[in-house]
């Protein structure tokens, strides 16, 4: 196997929205050759979601799609039609990995049958990312990112709190169930690929998004079996404080004093107000117990500070405060710029845009941005040509809406 990182590995992806697309994006970014298969009628639904330049919907300009599919090639294929299925088999026949997030109730119709595919390619590693896994009483349940965030026990932990008790549990922004599924499934798939290098076996990975979220449920998932307690909304239930977001003059800051020296340092930054000597606030546990009182005393001072100034002052004393970064703060961050966290690439329809690159730097496998996300069916001629399909047949397939 030649090349660096994942170079030389071939991945076929049938992804919609985030889970499978993020898993294979991470692989493509490390050098794998990823072919994304989309339906000829509209393609990946992420294309319809945006964000879009000028907020004008356009299937080739969705920021979500563009980000999730950099470094991949894209083809269209209707695998439900006979000829489409034959082509699918040819693609999978040459692949090391097949990654999909098609719902279990739709897999058979699309030809995602492991036994059948393994007969064609015994070394294939097929990763099925599904909401609840392939078996069990809820495996056929319909799901979206929000319902999964609830099914994994994470939604229940956020929102609410003093003054907001009537508000429902609050999700995290965006498509977090999809992203967690994607990164965890990528770990499992590469594990299986590593095993294949020694034992040669292909296999089927049955991956449950619900279980992934349960596995990161922090204190919530273990509290009952250890302490016979249930964690209710972190907002109003913290053993240690301050661990809170508070408003400054020009934005918001996360105040974090876990160690005593951190609190003492912060008190000093505040100019050692008299109330800080009160017994009510003398330990981190007491500060949590008396947070209602403490909060009211701190707020007016914090409100007079600028985020940047308080952040750097605190960090100079090794107090782990953090700005509540806006998107603009990220793009403008000198630190992220110095690390090269954003990189630009030109796309034929969407133009030149900055994209987040990768959160890790591997000394021997540099992250590279080789190509922008594919337009719908952009690589049909190239990929199908390599399978020996000529121009005449290609035209026919197009007419039959197979590609």
């Amino acid at each position, binding site marked *: 196997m030649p090349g660096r990182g994942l170079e030389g590995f071939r991945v076929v992806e049938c992804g919609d929205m985030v889970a499978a697309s993020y898993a294979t994006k991470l692989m493509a970014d490390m050098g794998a050759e990823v072919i994304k298969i989309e339906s000829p009628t509209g393609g990946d639904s992420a294309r319809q979601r945006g964000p879009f330049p000028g907020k004008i919907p356009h299937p080739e300009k969705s920021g979500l799609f563009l980000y999730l599919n950099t470094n991949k090639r894209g083809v269209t294929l209707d695998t439900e039609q006979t000829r489409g299925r034959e082509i699918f088999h040819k693609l999978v026949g040459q692949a090391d990995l097949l990654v999909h997030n098609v719902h279990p109730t739709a897999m058979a119709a699309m030809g995602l049958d492991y036994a059948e595919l393994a007969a064609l390619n015994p070394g294939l590693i097929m990763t099925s990312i599904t909401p609840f896994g392939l078996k069990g*009483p809820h495996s056929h349940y319909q799901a979206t990112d929000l*319902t999964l965030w609830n099914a994994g026990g994470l939604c229940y932990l956020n929102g609410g709190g003093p003054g*907001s008790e009537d508000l*429902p549990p609050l999700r995290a922004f965006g498509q977090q169930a999809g992203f967690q599924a994607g990164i*965890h499934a990528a770990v499992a798939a590469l594990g299986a690929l590593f095993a294949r290098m020694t034992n040669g076996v292909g296999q089927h990975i049955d991956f449950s998004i619900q279980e992934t979220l349960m596995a990161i449920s922090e204190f919530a998932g273990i509290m009952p079996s250890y302490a016979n307690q249930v964690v209710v909304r972190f907002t109003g239930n913290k053993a240690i404080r301050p661990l809170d977001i508070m408003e400054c003059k020009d934005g*918001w800051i996360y105040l974090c004093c876990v160690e005593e020296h951190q609190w003492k340092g912060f008190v000093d930054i505040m100019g050692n107000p008299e109330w800080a000597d009160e017994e009510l606030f003398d330990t981190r546990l007491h500060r949590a117990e008396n947070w209602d009182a403490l909060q009211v005393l701190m707020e007016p001072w914090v409100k007079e500070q600028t985020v940047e100034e308080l952040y750097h002052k605190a960090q100079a004393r090794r107090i782990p405060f953090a700005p509540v970064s806006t998107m603009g703060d990220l793009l403008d961050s000198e630190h992220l710029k*110095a690390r090269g966290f954003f990189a630009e690439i030109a796309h034929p329809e969407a133009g030149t845009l900055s994209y987040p690159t990768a959160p890790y*730097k591997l000394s021997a496998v540099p992250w590279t941005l080789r190509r922008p996300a594919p337009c719908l069916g952009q690589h049909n001629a190239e990929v199908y040509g390599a399978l020996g399909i000529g121009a005449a047949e290609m035209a026919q397939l197009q007419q039959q809406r197979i590609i």
Partner: protein
Amino acid sequence: MNKAPLDGIRVADFCWAWAGPYGALQLAHLGAEVIRIESTTRMCPSRLIPPWADNIQQGYNRSGYFNQYNQGKRSLTLNLKTAEGLDLAKKLVAKSDIVIENFAAGIMDKMGLGYEVLRAIKPDIIMAALSGYGATGPESSYVSYGPPQVALSGMSSLTGYDDGVPRQAGFSYGDPNGGVHGAYAILCALLHRAKTGEGQYIDLSQREACAMLLPEGIMEYVMNKTQPPRNGNRDPYMAPHGVFRCQGDDRWVSIVVRDDAEWQRLCAVMGKPELASNAQFATLAARKENEDALEATVTAWTRGRSAEEATQQLQQAGIPSYPSLDGRDLLANPQAAAREFFVEFEHPEVGKRRHLGIPWRMSETPCTVQRPAPMLGEATEYVLEQIVGLSHAEVVALREKNVLV
């Protein structure tokens, strides 16, 4: 049957708290032998935080938090402040494939265990350093914990109720997310080593790992210099899209309607088929326009029944829905139980407790949790005698010199 994928791979695990341990946990799940290097002189914070088994805080082995996120690993105690302890750590690295740590940037160098030192001992070592800000850049010396990383990454500025304050997502979401991205990078490095024989150094920033999850926010800013408003549980392309109050104390159900056909089915399930043709709600645009009234209508139906009953009825009609599970629901979840997701080992101090297991099943190289989380120092003799190659007498002597604490 074949062995687990990383069988035979050894990890020298210098991690503490949560991010690093969650990354190393993925490697243990895949079958690697993960050896935690611990010390009473620098106790892992997660051995010191609740929940304690039966609410009894005693010793270092009763924390559910520790016992959940360190399943399947071994524990070696070494005092790295002694020359002998440091030397033994290096000898273990010489017998390892991977080193993983999550101290603030530069700490391993100060301890005398930086990459250049370890590479001299084991040329093809893969070393992964997980830190809040990463090893380079003007803020690389800044301290960072998991909870503030959610704010720092930008996620909090996008999360919250309409017009309200920015909110936390999870509690320490930056930690497991940083850890699992670290595990992914390590696997890439392992595959690279298998092909080329070359080891390498991995510098991971947990803040950047969290920012990777926000393309809908970041790309909107890149394109339009604006960012999505905080809008609770709502979605611009689907409605209803929320978490609704049910019968009982603090019980909720999540419901999402993806298109007009699902809306019509929801109306039927709610016993209000006439609503389906009501122009106020008939199209996505109309439902978004009248979303407060829409949510009130749905709540009027959900609050009369349990979250489980609502889910069952909605799923029968093919509408995405699930109860908002709390911790107790989670451990009793029939789907996860049917898939044998939960892990219950007999632990010498805390007995049998239910833990969360591995979210994937491999058909040919099964991954199973091998053992409960380690008691502090439980494998010290095993590691030093079987792996490092000391005699039993040497280990006894080191113990007397307080090196193995």
